[in-house]
């Protein structure tokens, strides 16, 4: 963006990134019509990973339970959506649907219920995040990592124990269908991806603006030197908690979007693997970089798909396919996590950018997870911790 010769305001940068993502996503839904589901998954995960990259890169904290917050948001959105539907906030089905299912097709949820449900999901996830964060952010990173790991592991048990969450079968969700002219012209599946894209663009725009502005500077100050930050009046614990709550909220929104895209919610969507893949997306993109996390999310969603396609293409035996199906992507992404962190604290994209010489163009903040200035600009690692 520097190429335009003008230093741009944080808000303008955010809006630009949001618009680019929106446009690229819409193009992708037409370029790859057979991959609508994967595109939707990228968008939903991107929303969740965007908050995580702020938490890891800008605030220097780690969450291993983002899938837990996605699940929180997903179930909250699903229950809200179904409650509004049951309360009678419905519209008559679009003609496409009634044509397919006969004249007596059931009414569908009113379109305005969707943003309500999504916001409810994000809000509940933020509240749960605040609860968890209150306990854990005062301590060193390992405590928060452990607590969030424990949190991520209770998704399936909670759905099994609490009535009304549908257990392992999950819930069917009455999500709104696209209203008539749009639904028939564009297609229901594509409209859903577009809606998710709008949400993702908004989230990215707001986060870019926030991170480049005062809030981001506060976060980085609290990350780099706790004592110095406290001395200039930054409430360190509160700033860290805020970053954690933001990451929980975006994960909740991502979970809600996943519900809208699929029309169902299942505990199996939100396993430990999802949390880990989101972390890989963040690290590969360069922790703290909102532009990088887009590439990182694309990568982690693409790896399992490519693995499956390659195995099908080489006619691997069913036994071999069964062994490699989940494990090969897990191994590859785990290896990426290790190698990228060991070799390039700024992430793969930061390294690429150095190679092409565009040093500061699209950067959003830090050089990575406490990167000790390997790309010459970096923050300094936290040097002390004084427990209460």
């Amino acid at each position, binding site marked *: 963006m520097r190429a335009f010769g003008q230093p741009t305001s944080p808000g303008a940068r955010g809006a630009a990134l949001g618009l680019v993502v929106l446009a690229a996503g819409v193009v992708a839904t037409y370029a790859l019509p057979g991959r609508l589901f994967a595109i939707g998954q990228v968008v939903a995960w991107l929303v969740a990973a965007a908050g995580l990259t702020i938490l890891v890169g800008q605030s220097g904290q780690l969450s291993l339970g983002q899938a837990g917050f996605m699940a929180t948001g997903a179930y909250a959105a699903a229950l809200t959506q179904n409650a509004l539907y049951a309360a009678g906030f419905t519209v008559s089905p679009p003609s496409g649907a009634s044509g397919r299912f006969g004249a007596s097709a059931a009414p569908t949820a009113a379109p305005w219920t969707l943003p309500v449900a999504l916001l409810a999901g994000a809000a509940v996830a933020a509240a749960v995040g605040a609860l968890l964060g209150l*306990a854990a952010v005062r301590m060193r*990173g390992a405590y928060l990592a452990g607590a969030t790991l424990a949190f991520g592991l209770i998704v399936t048990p909670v759905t099994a*124990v609490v009535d009304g969450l549908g257990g392992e079968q999950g819930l069917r969700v009455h999500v709104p269908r696209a209203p008539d002219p749009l639904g028939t012209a564009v297609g229901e599946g594509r409209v859903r991806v577009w809606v998710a894209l709008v949400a993702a663009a908004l989230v990215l725009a707001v986060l870019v603006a926030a991170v480049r502005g005062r809030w981001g500077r506060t976060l980085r100050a609290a990350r780099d030197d706790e004592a110095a930050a406290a001395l200039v009046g930054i409430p360190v614990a509160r700033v860290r908690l805020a970053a954690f709550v933001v990451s929980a909220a975006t994960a909740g929104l991502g979970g809600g979007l996943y519900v809208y895209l699929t029309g169902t919610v299942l505990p199996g969507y939100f396993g430990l693997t999802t949390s880990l893949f989101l972390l890989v997306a963040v690290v590969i993109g360069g922790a703290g970089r909102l532009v990088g996390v887009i590439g990182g999310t694309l990568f982690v969603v693409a790896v399992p798909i490519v693995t499956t396609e390659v195995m099908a293409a080489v006619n691997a035996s069913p036994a071999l396919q069964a062994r490699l199906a*989940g494990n090969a992507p897990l191994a590859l992404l*785990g290896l990426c996590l290790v190698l990228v*962190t060991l070799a390039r604290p700024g992430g793969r994209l930061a390294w690429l950018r150095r190679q092409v010489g565009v040093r500061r163009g699209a950067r959003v903040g830090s050089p990575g997870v406490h990167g*000790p200035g390997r790309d010459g600009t970096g923050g300094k*690692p936290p040097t002390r911790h004084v427990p209460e």
Partner: protein
Amino acid sequence: MTRFLFLTIDGLAMGAVYATFALSLVLIWRAARIVNFAQAAISVAAVDVAWVVGSRVGGWWLGLLLAPLVGALLGVLMQRFTMRRLGPERHLDAIIVAIGVAMVVQAGLGMVFGLQYRPLPAPVSQTVLTVGGVPTLSPYKLVVLGAAALLGVGLALLFSRTALGLRLRASALAPEVARLLGVEVDRMTTLAWGLAAGVGAFAALLVLPTGPGLHPTAMDGVFITAFTAAVLGGLDSPVGAVVGGFAVGLVLNYVTGYTDEPNLAPIALLGLLLAVLLVRPNGVFAGPTIRRA
């Protein structure tokens, strides 16, 4: 009352395992200020290898000897090839790398052994003995208690009575001073990783026969349980980890035993962890001292 006695005794036996695994986390934390999030995966891998060899040659008892050795080797390799390359201040990166190692190890195990549970038979009966009308422990749980106690005593002797133990403690508490006094701190750190991973594998071999068996993620639940136990004890204190292990074992047994709902265990665990962090974030045994990083 009978039920309470049974749950208490059984909870103590399970607590011994959690305490042992918690010790392995505390050993690394003391040496390197890192929680080894790959410990669960590494210990399953060690038991897997030990069982492949042990079941052909000498059975479970040989495995009991082999698993800690294989685990220690894996711990040393992990420290040498990943952790040592990170600077001492990159705590967050260390967790991320450990997670990556765990993913690679678990995926590797899944590729080699598949993703179905493979039963790991116990060397002695797992039928609960009844003493005076009160169901107590199975012979196997007695073995578990005895083995864990032996290991605990051995570690205590190692750290308090031997020159090696002194060097290990010195490297952990004051690396600069220890280095000046001729202790090879780097080697001690590697040794601590090996020791810790060996202890973790030992705990895994003890606990896995009581569950559904071997699986790449079979120790994940034990990891979180032991982490909670270690935090309860302060994460820095071996004695705290042992007491925390027993406490967590009892709490989990009471919760799941009285409700007959195993799904409550992870939920209770998270509640306990958050309660400890809110009320006594430095652990129940923390003294008034403030230590820096």
